[in-house]
């Protein structure tokens, strides 16, 4: 029987390794092909090794502009969503009140509505109100899907929190503001930061909702999609690799930070 168990464990590990390979093949491809010197307009077939793309990552002006726009939109949307979402999470996990389960459902719906429906419905409203589509409407759209995401993840992270700690702080003479800034805020911070980081990734990555509400504004995914008809440049791989490295560093940093705190 234990032989059967070991065989089971072995085959599970082999399957897992293959699944990891499947998950990481495109990531490896992105990094490897950032060093490619493609022969035509499409960086899809390996030709020869070069460092040129990394030496001049911002050579493609339109791509760079779109990249900067994506970062600005993500920064604004994530800031708005994180503040509003963290407050909602705080309300839902700290207080018992009538209607909280209805609020829960209301929060889940934007997250479980297909992106295509969110994009289409926002566009319909913007058309109804005669709002010109552009930078602002993209920020609104991104704030929408980040908001539910932040509220629900932060809520999940702080659901086990012992709120009596706040009373303890008050008993020791701390005022409400001091209690919040010294006790509550530091405790919820790692969860809020992780949620903000993930929604930043959601925002700079979004194509579907953005395509409905972009007007003449180009984000990086929009630029890649539109220009794919004529080219796919290796600078795209360089920028994608940069985003990958920065976010992995931040992710590892934040988990080390929260591991230290919980010790």
């Amino acid at each position: 029987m234990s032989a059967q168990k070991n065989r089971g464990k072995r085959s599970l590990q082999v399957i897992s390794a293959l699944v990891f390979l499947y998950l990481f093949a495109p990531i490896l491809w992105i990094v490897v092909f950032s060093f490619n010197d493609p022969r035509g307009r499409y960086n899809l077939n390996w030709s020869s090794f070069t460092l040129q793309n990394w030496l001049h990552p911002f050579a493609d002006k339109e791509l760079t502009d779109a990249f900067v726009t994506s970062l600005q939109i993500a920064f604004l949307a994530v800031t708005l969503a994180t503040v509003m979402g963290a407050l909602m999470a705080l309300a839902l996990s700290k207080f018992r009140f009538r209607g909280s389960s209805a609020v829960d459902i209301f929060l889940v719906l934007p997250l479980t509505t297909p992106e295509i429906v969110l994009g289409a419905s926002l566009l319909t409203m913007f058309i109804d109100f005669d709002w010109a589509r552009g930078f602002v409407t993209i920020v609104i759209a991104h704030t929408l899907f980040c908001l539910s995401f932040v509220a629900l993840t932060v809520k999940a992270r702080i659901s086990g929190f012992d709120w009596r700690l706040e009373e303890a702080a008050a008993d020791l003479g701390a005022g409400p503001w001091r209690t919040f800034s010294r006790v509550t805020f530091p405790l919820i911070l790692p969860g809020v930061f992780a949620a903000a980081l993930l929604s930043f990734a959601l925002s700079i990555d979004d194509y579907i909702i953005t395509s409905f509400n972009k007007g003449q504004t180009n984000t990086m995914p929009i630029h890649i999609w539109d220009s794919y008809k004529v080219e796919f440049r290796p600078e795209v791989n360089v920028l994608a690799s940069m985003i990958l490295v920065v976010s992995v560093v931040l992710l590892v940093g934040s988990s080390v930070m929260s591991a230290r705190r919980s010790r």
Partner: protein
Amino acid sequence: MAGEGRKNGRFVPWALLSPGGLFLALFFLVPVWALARIALSTKPSRFEDPAFAWDFSNFGTALSDYGGQFGRSFLYAGLATLFAFIIGYPLAYSIAAYGGKWKDLLIGLVVIPFFTSFLIRTIAWTSILGPQSVVTDAFRGLPLVGDDFNFIGNMWSVVGGLTYNFLPFMILPIYVALEKIDFRLTEAAGDLYATPVAGFWRVIFPLSLPGVFAGSLLVFIPAAGDFINTRFLGTPKTSVIGSVVQDQFLVQLNYPVAAALSLFLMAIITVAVLIYSKLFGTEGLAA
């Protein structure tokens, strides 16, 4: 599971909820209402504004003209959910059962693909498995595989792309469910003369079902609305509901039918979500 010392509140929680709540009301509820209105409007030609008219014919048109796309969206999303479960479950299980001190790192690795662009990862497959790639070449050399064999450009490459892109959404909730299970239960089952396989199916698997349901929902929903995979990995013959909605909205300017299509998609998925949250609550959907 609720935290200790939760307070009863009347005014404060609603004050905290109001900025986000107002935002959601204005930019989620009002748009969905606008979408429903447009779906019931008439728009005789692309140059005229839609006029509200309780016109239910758009829903009929949506189904009769785009039934094929509907069928494909749900078929592809269903297959992708099934495949994600088949390959995601063993991985989640291995990490939860055998991960030891590497657990956090391994599950962190599952999330890393999220941090590179969805679009670029999908385009990556057209290069890795494209007509001129090493892998395709090697396959064409195999017996019984013809020289015109291609990975990309059929329904299976679309399903493969969907499975790939949404796989982490399946793995994470299953892992969360498995992680709570005490794996000594399998030993107990063994002591009671259950084979390891029976021990798994009768003891562990039922306990992990909430995670399986959450994961299935989280894969199926984005997969049913996606049209990026079919754009890069499929052909015009694999067009799906998302392709039609985007085309009708942004190119044909045929808002009423496109709105009706979106509402159908939303209605089906919302029913599934409401049933899920009645059964399991909303916790599992926020990985």
